């Protein structure tokens, strides 16, 4: 009798915990997400569409895509290089390098933005030199790209370092001993070994590159139609009480998040599958 009571008690606790979790997620995650779409569509599809084709919105979307198109490939290249160096070679200062790679995660994005203003701004270290050559970085697209690269740097490297360290050097050494060049080894052996981890890192990196607000906000200057990315554009519209337009653009970002989430799940599933079949 006692056992049955204990069992039903445990069942109740389980249901209670699951219920609480669902309620929490519903209240704090799903409901806000739904409300973004609801607000965006509150004046109908025509107003929603109009907000998106408006020239400033269009330029914000284009700029966001441009920034992601530059910063993601750059971080893929540097992330793979950093992960390769850390996972496959032993050298002094290795742990320091790992710490530096994590720096963007631990620094507030606003500080990251300010660093670039201090470096490249008019009053910054390189400001006079840049002005002499008529190069504008702060309050222009280059600054936004630089800040985004800084903030998103760890995603690819962080994903690859443990994966490459776990895989060791044997495969690469085998390829080299068979006469392959370094580049052939990377392309035909290393890259296939890390492809799912790399894709996962790229997805996270891309989501952050498109959604970054703080660092970009500091360096952008908020010039409408010129240096506004989508998150900045949303803020401006919201501050102007233009809720439908603000939420319409915001819903695009939310949609991006959802697509990323689905792709991430697919990649994770493939990744686990591949890992599961590795065993010796």
């Amino acid at each position, binding site marked *: 009798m006692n056992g049955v009571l204990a069992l039903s008690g445990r069942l109740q606790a389980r249901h209670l915990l699951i219920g609480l979790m669902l309620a929490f997620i519903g209240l704090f995650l799903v409901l806000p997400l739904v409300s973004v779409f609801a607000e965006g569509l509150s004046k109908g599809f025509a107003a929603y569409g109009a907000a998106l084709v408006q020239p400033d919105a269009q330029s914000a979307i284009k700029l966001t895509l441009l920034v992601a198109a530059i910063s993601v490939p750059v971080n893929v290249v540097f992330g793979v290089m950093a992960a390769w160096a850390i996972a496959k070679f032993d050298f002094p200062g290795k742990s320091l390098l790992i710490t530096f790679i994590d720096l963007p995660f631990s620094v507030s994005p606003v500080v990251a933005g300010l660093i670039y203003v201090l470096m490249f701004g008019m009053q910054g270290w390189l400001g006079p030199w840049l002005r002499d050559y008529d190069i504008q970085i702060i309050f222009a697209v280059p600054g936004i790209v630089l800040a985004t690269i800084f903030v998103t740097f760890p995603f690819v490297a962080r994903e690859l370092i443990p994966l490459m360290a776990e895989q060791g050097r044997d495969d690469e*050494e*085998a390829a*080299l001993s*068979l006469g*392959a*060049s370094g580049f052939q080894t990377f392309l035909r052996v290393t890259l296939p070994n890390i492809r799912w981890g790399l894709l996962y890192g790229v997805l996270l990196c891309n989501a952050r590159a498109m959604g970054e607000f703080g660092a970009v906000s500091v360096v952008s200057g908020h010039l409408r139609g010129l240096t506004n990315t989508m998150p900045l554009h949303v803020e401006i519209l919201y501050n102007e009480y233009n809720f439908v337009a603000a939420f319409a653009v915001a819903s695009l970002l939310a949609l991006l998040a959802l697509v990323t989430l689905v792709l991430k799940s697919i990649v994770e599933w493939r990744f686990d599958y591949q890992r599961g079949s590795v*065993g010796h």
Partner: protein
Amino acid sequence: MIRLDSISKRYGAYQALDNINLDVRDGEFLALLGPSGSGKTTLLRIVAGLAFPDHGSVLFNGEDVTDLKVAERKVGFVFQHYALFKHMTVADNIGFGLSVRKRRERPSKAAIRARAEELLDLVQLRGLGDRYPAQLSGGQRQRVALARALAVEPQLLLLDEPFGALDAQVRKELRRWLRHLHDQMGLTSIFVTHDQEEALELADRVVVMDHGVIEQIGTPEEVYMAPRSSFVSNFVGETNSLPVSVRDGQAHFFDRHIAIEAERMPDGPARLDFRPHDVTVGDEQPGCLPLLVTGVYRRGGDWRVEGEVTGVDRTIEVNLDARMPAPEVGKRLAIKVQRAKLFQLSEVKP
């Protein structure tokens, strides 16, 4: 012929290899034998061009290849954990070395495939070319790794603990087969192992290493029967060690005289090493050791008797003919050592 000339290698404060000199003859099957940390794998990697010595040189047929990278040395390397490319089929794995050649030296796709099939036949895996490594057993994977290494027709085959990841039965089968393949193809091979049984069974010559130096080079027979140091006699085969002292060409275990040749030994403390099968049961005559029997079990045609000798920390193990009645546990046996090696204590490493 491969010649290693005064090779040294240091990792930080750790001396991995200390002045190694070694010649490997053409057609030879050579074993590098030693405990972990003895430097045997580092030496193999230096021969391969996967690691580079701080001092000394590596010569292939008189040509200095010390600064050549692994890709330029034309060696086949087989890894303990196979290192097969898991996203490629077995045939693509085997053909990899041919497919990465420069365009004008590269055989056609069909020719590479044909060569892969040929090698699959050689390693007795016909018909498995379209499988993936994950679908093969450990022994099969190591055969594929071997076929892949042989595909580029290396002048030297290097194997790093090639059977280490396999279970006992497969290991035994595969190593005999490998020896056979080596002879059949006229290869020159060096393999690294920590398993003395494997080294003695397979190799033409065994190089026993410890702490980055070569302790002895010799045929399996020489290394087993005439160990040059106490380390070798303890590492290769089973050995019992007794602390003895030498006085006037006579070995003494405490006050007991041991009838072992010690004529050329200087006076002083020494170590007496003898194999478990180099003893007989004597009567209580001088020159015998009193062994208190603590355990007896059958090992093939012998009794394996474990016992204690007063004044020795380690259990003494001896083999006695199982056609005799088994000794009783708790009884004392008088053991007569028939064959032993004496090592001066100053030569014995701690």
